[in-house]
């Protein structure tokens, strides 16, 4: 007889457990979403640095007269950075949605199979509006570089 009656303590317990479960569930969902956003932003920052800063560093590291050239190829624009007088050059270009680089003899054909991946990009455009200015565009934005070696010597 007594067991058929509603026990307020039992309902209270169920309510508390339900509240705890709902709280944990919301916390896990919110936490997972926040973590996903943080990782996405971190990857975005890394991509930006990897593509734009890497190109900038490569160009500035070999900024000697006539070292930087732009070539059109079957892969689109190719940024050629000659390694001094060694007869070799670093070539940066886009292949299969990836920005790649290879190091080979100047004038040799491009070899994407021997290249290293810098990052992912759907766009790679190199422009030289004046002799001492280089503009490189990728998915992550663009980087402007002043070629000190091509300037007026200031």
């Amino acid at each position, binding site marked *: 007889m007594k067991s058929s009656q509603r026990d307020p303590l039992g309902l209270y317990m169920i309510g508390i457990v339900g509240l705890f479960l709902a709280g944990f569930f919301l916390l896990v969902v919110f936490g997972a979403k926040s973590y996903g956003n943080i990782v996405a932003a971190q990857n975005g920052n890394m991509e930006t640095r990897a593509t734009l800063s890497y190109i900038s560093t490569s160009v500035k590291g070999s900024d000697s007269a006539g070292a930087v050239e732009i070539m059109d190829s079957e892969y689109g624009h190719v940024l050629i950075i000659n390694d001094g007088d060694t007869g070799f050059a670093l070539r940066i270009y886009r292949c299969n949605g990836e920005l790649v680089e290879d190091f080979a003899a100047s004038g040799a054909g491009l070899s994407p199979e021997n290249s290293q991946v810098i990052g992912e990009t759907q766009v790679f455009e190199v422009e030289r509006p004046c002799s001492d200015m280089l503009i490189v565009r990728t998915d992550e934005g663009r980087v402007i570089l*002043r070629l000190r070696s091509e300037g007026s010597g200031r």
Partner: protein
Amino acid sequence: MKKNGHITAFYVETLLLVVIFVAIILVLTNVLGLGRRESGDARLLTKAVTLAENAAETVACADSGEALLGLLDENGNALRKDAATFDVRYGADMAPDAKGPFSVEVTWEPEQGTVGTLVSSRITVRYGQSEAPIYTLETAVYLKEAER
């Protein structure tokens, strides 16, 4: 009497537990929210640094204030604020955009030397309506007599 006392103690304990649980959830939510905000700020800062670096390189390429304005301007995104200050606008994707949220303020302050001119430039990047700068960079370029 004894049973009622036990039940009251149980209610008090569970209420206390709920309060502690809610407090923990609030703290964790704040921590996660802070992480999210910081991550967004880091993204903005990375873009601001890239835009400031680009502006600094453009300053290095210019030999006069007019030339700088010409080099900075793409699709009408650069304005002259005063004689020595330019405001350049970029979109959230860092593409030139006259109505974009990124504002890059570039100054051109020549200082006459004995054989040339030292031009100092302060580059300040802001985002949206906020007046607080995200990133500030100072650079300088030396112009020989013939270049002025």
